[in-house]
């Protein structure tokens, strides 16, 4: 058991007289409907004090609703919650915090412009006596102690915006520790972390576990869930499908429980191979400090993967090709037509499409309808009256409905339903769908499966295959090596803005690919053994 610093003793008062109870958290027959739609029906889950519950389910399965009920954001229609043996009916998020629950969200709730210490004590600064003046020195000291609990050796006066995503996550955890939280909810905490940060996060979770804190761990990364949990609970369509000790679960069982069917082959096969015609050709693409001498050819019906660590220049390269950013040197051509430094508008007309990395920031208009989003790129083709470009009210509705049906977007009437209210997977399908309406020759996808559930991922793989079979050329940028290996005909590995290596299907060695991705990062330049020359 870890020693708690003296100055935190008072804050951690529960720790001194733990009054251990058997069950930390009991959901008993929780039901909740929204406008007649069942979000949760009769869900009962119990977590022993000091245990870690792995809560899994597809997006829309009811995990967030359950956690929102626990957090006092919404009230259940039926059912009761007992927290540490006591009846618990939170009326507001503040009550949940007071009851000793801390939520650590995927989207961090930190103020980037404030210092670490300010963030840690934002809801209760140490003061000079009873005056309203902040006791800065004491705040810094306590902050330092909290940070040491999560192995973060950074000066507490550092602004949060200076920290890496992983470090921010740790600050968030330190904040939870500072609030004496007895029950800590992690909601997709590892999505934005590097491998090293991930390891650190799990060390800390393990430590919290050893301290006897109760943890609920929610994630789509099923390996992680198996790694940290004692108990697993699977939700599907608002119902508890199965629950039991972690030992009874494997990734395969978790998937089949979540999806309700077996996904025997995670990566569906494609009926066609790469064609001969060159759809996209990039020669010597250079932009100082971003990319250097990138050359490759992408053929029709081909799925070309791009692997690289964050900062390797892969997304930046895609943005340059698409015309959102400029390049200083090099040539880009689409189906033989020069498109170097062309505008995105011109490139779209030439058949280029780009599913951007971050669907919230750059892919969607969250507060408008699915129809408006789907039609965003292809509006012009539905317009009448020449340059006046008048749209009939029904303009594009039919085509958009066809795409929504093809992608199986789960949504109400698409001209009424707002995108914000869709699940992550369905939002991503909308982003892809708006490009399908333009019938692209080359489709660039940047991390299209990030943060979406297994079922939706599988569907997106299927969509990509269908497009390739129909003749589109696909440039697939991804951080999940397994996904690239399963899906692509070729994989390019980028590092430091350069293409380090090329691998062909049948020749995939995960270790070699990873090695290429990490080469050139440590300063010493790796031998360009796998230097790409894709001309056939």
């Amino acid at each position: 058991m870890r020693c708690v610093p003296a100055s935190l003793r008072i804050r951690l008062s529960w720790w001194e007289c733990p009054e251990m109870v058997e069950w930390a958290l009991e959901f008993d027959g929780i039901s909740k409907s929204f406008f007649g739609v069942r979000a949760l029906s009769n869900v009962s889950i119990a977590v022993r004090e000091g245990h870690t519950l792995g809560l899994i389910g597809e997006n829309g399965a009811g995990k967030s609703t359950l956690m929102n009920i626990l957090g006092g954001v919404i009230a259940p229609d039926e059912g009761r919650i007992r927290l540490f043996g006591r009846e618990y009916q939170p009326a507001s998020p503040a009550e949940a915090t007071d009851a000793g629950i801390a939520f650590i969200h995927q989207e961090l709730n930190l103020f980037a412009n404030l210092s670490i210490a300010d963030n840690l004590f934002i809801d209760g600064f140490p003061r000079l006596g009873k005056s309203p003046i902040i006791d800065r020195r004491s705040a810094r000291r306590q902050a330092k102690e909290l940070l040491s609990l999560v192995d973060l050796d950074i000066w507490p006066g550092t602004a949060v915006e200076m920290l890496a995503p992983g470090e921010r996550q740790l600050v968030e955890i330190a904040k939870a520790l500072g609030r004496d939280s007895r029950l800590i909810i992690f909601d997709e905490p590892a999505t934005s972390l590097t491998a090293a940060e991930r390891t650190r996060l799990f060390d800390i979770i393990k430590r919290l576990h050893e301290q006897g804190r109760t943890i609920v761990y929610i994630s789509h990364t099923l390996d992680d869930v198996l790694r940290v949990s004692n108990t697993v609970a699977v939700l599907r369509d608002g119902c508890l499908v199965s629950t039991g000790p972690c030992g009874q679960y494997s990734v395969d069982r978790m998937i089949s429980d979540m999806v309700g069917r077996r996904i025997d082959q995670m990566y569906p096969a494609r009926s066609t191979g790469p064609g001969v015609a060159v759809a996209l050709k990039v020669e010597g693409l250079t932009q100082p400090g971003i990319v250097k001498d990138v050359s490759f050819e992408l053929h029709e019906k081909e799925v070309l993967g791009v692997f690289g660590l964050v900062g390797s220049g892969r997304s930046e390269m895609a943005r340059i090709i698409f015309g959102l950013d400029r390049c200083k040197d090099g040539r880009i051509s689409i189906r033989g037509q020069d498109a170097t430094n062309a505008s995105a508008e011109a490139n779209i007309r030439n058949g280029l499409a780009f599913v951007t990395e971050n669907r919230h920031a750059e892919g969607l208009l969250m507060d408008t309808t699915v129809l408006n989003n789907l039609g965003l790129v292809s509006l012009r083709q539905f317009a009448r009256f020449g340059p006046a470009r008048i749209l009939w009210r029904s303009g594009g509705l039919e085509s958009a409905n066809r795409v929504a049906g093809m992608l199986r977007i789960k949504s109400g009437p698409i001209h009424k339903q707002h995108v914000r209210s869709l699940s992550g997977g369905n939002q991503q399908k909308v982003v892809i769908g708006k490009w399908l309406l333009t019938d692209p020759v080359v489709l660039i996808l940047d991390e299209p499966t990030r943060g979406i559930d297994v079922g939706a991922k599988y569907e997106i793989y299927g969509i990509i295959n269908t497009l390739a079979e129909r003749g589109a050329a696909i440039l697939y940028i991804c951080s999940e090596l397994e996904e690239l290996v399963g899906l692509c005909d070729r994989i390019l590995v980028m590092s430091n803005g350069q293409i380090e290596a090329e691998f062909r299907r049948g020749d995939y060695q995960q270790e070699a690919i990873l090695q290429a991705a990490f080469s050139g990062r440590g300063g010493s330049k790796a031998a360009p053994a796998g230097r790409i020359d894709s001309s056939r």
Partner: protein
Amino acid sequence: MPREVVLSDHFVLVLTVLYFLLSWVIYPHMAGRRNIANLFSNVWPLLALVIGQMFVLIVGGIDLSQTSIMAVTSVLGAAIMATRFDPAKFEHNPFWGVVFSEQGGLLAGSGWAVPAAVLVMLVVGVTIGLLNGLAVAKLRMPPFMVTLVAMSFFSGLAIYLTRSENIMYLPESFIAMGKGAIGPVPSALLMVVSLAALAFVVLNASVLGRWFYAVGQNIRTARACGIPTQRVVVLAYVLSGFCAAVGSILYSARLEAGRPTLGRDLLLDVIGAAVIGGISLFGGKGKVLGAVYGVLFFVVLDNSLNKMPLDFYSIDIIKGCVILMAAVLDALRTRIAANQVVLVGMS
């Protein structure tokens, strides 16, 4: 209040009618024929300005320079077409004898005077809007700063050009644009209603309209979708400048003068009517119908306040409070709507 009523598009109209009926009880001549005519004559020029402002608000900007565009175009138009300048007022003006003289403005007396003046007013309005738009879109300067500077510069310019004197003696045919009527229909109504109809078609039924909303909701998404975002933003400010010039024509004609301080106190009315009409200051939201309702409410309010035994400053204080209430109400409506969306999203 029931949710449906507060969330309804027509909520402001309902409020306006209720308020009007209440004032009618207290001041019976509110509904008199003369007052109604007066009321509506105040609606048209303000509506022109609010429609222009709406385009800029939708793309997530704000145009504080509209009133100064009015002042500068009012002065320039008058300088072209005035039939006579009073030497007592303009003798010491640096342009005396150059641009205008006792015989009137540049084109005084010519049949082209009024069309040329109107054209110049519109072109100047569009040009100032273009400058605003370019500074915002190309130089990526904050709209607030750009248009604040433009407001200061052009209202200063208008006063400098005239040494703060009103230019009187405008041609009859120009005055008719603001005061006249074609048959029973006031010409101001015709102009502004067609402007509103055009704005309605652009926003509701054209590709351009979708682009305005898309840019206001998320400019990065818009850019990634190949929407020419810079052109769209510039165009919003150009339309705002154009509408300000139309407003200037109507106000100048009604006041029968080129006025360097025209619209000086109007900025609050324009932004206030827009906010009351549900046009979001955060961008991406706004409808022509909302603008109409906002202007109606504002004009009725102003009219009723003028009937009360209040001085000028108290009226401003009350107007400020009402706009504040409208802003609070708007935030409330947004929250109710957002809650509904979030709740649906959890299901």
